[in-house]
């Protein structure tokens, strides 16, 4: 019961990401999603009585719910761009597409994997949806921040998928992942800053002009 609530919350947070029109809204929705993910890890830790899971939960909370949103919000404030994300697909249509993906993922989890436990099956469906929607955010939003968030969302989805199917990846792999993500965000922050300084925008759709 508890797990279903957490998974639903996770999915709803992802939908929030999809319909977000402003950069700050996107980052805040990502924070909500990360909190639900850490709750999921906490639940897994409690039910399986694994110390490692608690550490993972803490890392998720600190890194994804606090540090990364903070870093991203700071860079947004520093480069002082307009709030608009630059949507290639409007929120209403995005939501419909997102629902389509959810159904597709459900079918996939149901048919392809044939998991016996319905909750596990649902977790897999949710995780695949999240990966797809992360991709979708990367494709259909213009500003570079959306591409960063999209990638992080996908990473969240993969984490959920791994723990849904196999009960979590090995501890060291998880730690390495967090470290990767952290470094990625730091580098991207610098990068976005430089790009903005050079081109006075962070609009990836305008990068076509770089083509020779």
């Amino acid at each position: 019961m508890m797990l279903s609530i957490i998974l639903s919350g996770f999915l709803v947070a992802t939908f929030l990401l999809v319909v977000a029109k402003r950069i700050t809204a996107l980052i805040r929705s990502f924070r909500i999603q990360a909190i639900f993910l850490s709750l999921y890890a906490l639940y897994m830790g409690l039910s399986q009585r694994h110390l490692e899971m608690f550490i993972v939960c803490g890392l998720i909370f600190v890194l994804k719910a606090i540090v990364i949103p903070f870093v991203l919000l700071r860079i947004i404030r520093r480069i002082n761009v307009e709030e608009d994300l630059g949507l290639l697909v409007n929120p209403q249509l995005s939501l419909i597409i997102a629902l389509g993906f959810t159904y597709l993922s459900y079918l996939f989890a149901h048919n392809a994997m044939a998991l016996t436990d319905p909750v596990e099956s649902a977790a897999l469906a949710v995780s695949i949806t999240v990966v797809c929607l992360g991709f979708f955010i990367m494709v259909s939003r213009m500003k570079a921040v959306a591409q960063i968030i999209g990638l992080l969302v996908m990473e969240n989805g993969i984490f959920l998928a791994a723990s849904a199917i196999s009960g979590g990846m090995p501890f060291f792999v998880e730690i390495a992942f967090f470290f990767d993500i952290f470094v990625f965000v730091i580098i991207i922050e610098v990068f976005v800053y430089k790009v903005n300084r050079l081109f006075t925008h962070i609009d990836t759709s305008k990068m076509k002009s770089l083509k020779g």
Partner: protein
Amino acid sequence: MINFLPKQLFFFDPLAVFFLVVIGLVCVPSAIFSIGYLRAESLKRKILSWVLLIIFAFSMCSVVLSGNMLLFLICWEVMSLVSYFLVVFDFKQEKSIRAGIIYLVMTHAGTACLMAAFFILYNHAGSFDYAAVKQSFMLLTPQLRNIIFLLLFIGFATKAGVVPLHIWLPYAHPQAPAHISSIMSGVMIKVGIYGMMRFFITLLGPGPAWWGAFILALGIVSCLVGVIYALMDHDLKKLLAYHSVENIGIILLGLGTAMFFGSRGKTVVAVLAMCAGLYHLVNHALFKGLLFLCSGSVFKASGLRDMEKMGGLIKKMPMTALFFLIGAMGISALPPLNGFVSEWLTFQAFFSGVLESQGWVKIFMVLSAAALAMTSGLAAACFVKAFGISFLGSPRSVRAQDAKECGFSMKAGMALLAIPVILFGIGAGFIMPILLSISRAALGVEKADISVRLLSVLPAMIAVILLVIGSAVFLWFRFGLRNKRVSYNTWDCGYYSLDSRNEYTATAFSKPFRIAFSFFLLPYRKSEKIRDSFYHVRKFTYETHTTSVFKRFLYEPLLRLIYSTAFKMRKLQPGSIHLYIFYIFATLVGLITIAAIF
């Protein structure tokens, strides 16, 4: 563990040693020639040239001596790359770069086919060694064997310059320095033939009869196409390059016949044909090397490659003219010289092939003999043009007027090739037994009854007869007609004061052939008039050209196809990051959909 490293590194058998001798015969004189040819270059470029030349020669030696496919491939690639650098040795000329690119593309397309074939062979033999390949090849299915044959043939034929893969020769050979053209045309394209002999005869042979017939047919096409294009070209080195195509065709006639009859068990004919092919191979190496060196000597002396601007060079450069004449007589297969012997042998092979076969094979052999006869006739005509227009008559340009005889080292290089041209003709009786034993070893035949008695006396006899008749005629003209001798200007035809602008030209000489082969050459004219008024034409230009059929109907459509496909592919990459991510996304969703449904 796969035994990746081959057991046998080098492999000395009669065939390999024969090619080693051919390489030495051409490379040494060319190297000597290059001393004089590169005299004007800076020290740095001289050193570069020598280093490249030595690597080139050694890579060719290692190709023919290698005992496994891996070493073969490595040396083959080194050879191709070094020869590319030698082609673009005059890198400041845009033509050289262009020629180099064409050569590089063609040779690598060929090498790609070779690699494919070698890896298929390796896959089945489990080793790169020739011995293992030979054993395992018999166990393969016929289809796979045919595929391997075709791949290997394309690879070697590209290097050898067999029509329609000859396209690079007329670009690359003229642009390289003369001594390099001499080695490339004399030896490097022969390494392609070596590959065919090594693989189709000693390793993978005897294959099905159609392999031999296929090579024979392409040989016929090559020799005719090569000589017809050579007749039309008035650039001396380009003409020689087209003659290489022709002579490779003649060598393939021997090789194809040998393979054809080898697969039918007619060993005597096979040995004879193989012998003819080998003989023509060494002959072509000699006289083509010589002719390229002569063209280099002319180029160094006058800066000219276009025959229409030469003329009268025999008076300025008598030694070069003599060497060119010897080479031209050799390549035209005139009796006492070496070309005659090998073409005569090829005819012999065809005729004994006719006697040994029935039905359509008889007709095929007769037609091949007819094609060879026509080729030698046209080649003779072509060298009448080449020698007559460039060396006889009176100079057609200031540069030809000012030409000077070349230095000692260049003469020595040419002489070292000219003497064997004569020796290989008159001394055929000594050469033949050696070549027969090489052919027997290559074909794996214990004994083949072939008499060389006629051959050992025939060229010498003809030489004596020619000498007697020639001196008789000379004496008669010199002393018998004393009172009737009148001196005019050169090629004056008994008129007075005709100058070089009235002379017979190469274009005029080749006109009958242009008309006779117009179905293939597709000649066209271009004229342009610049007029002041209707009545007064200030300038009138008139050009005739021939269409290069292979370029126009094979290579240009191919290139257009590649370019148009590339332009269509370019639309997939508009530079939008969103689209690129979308491609990944679409693939993922597609996969999920497929997995969800099935």
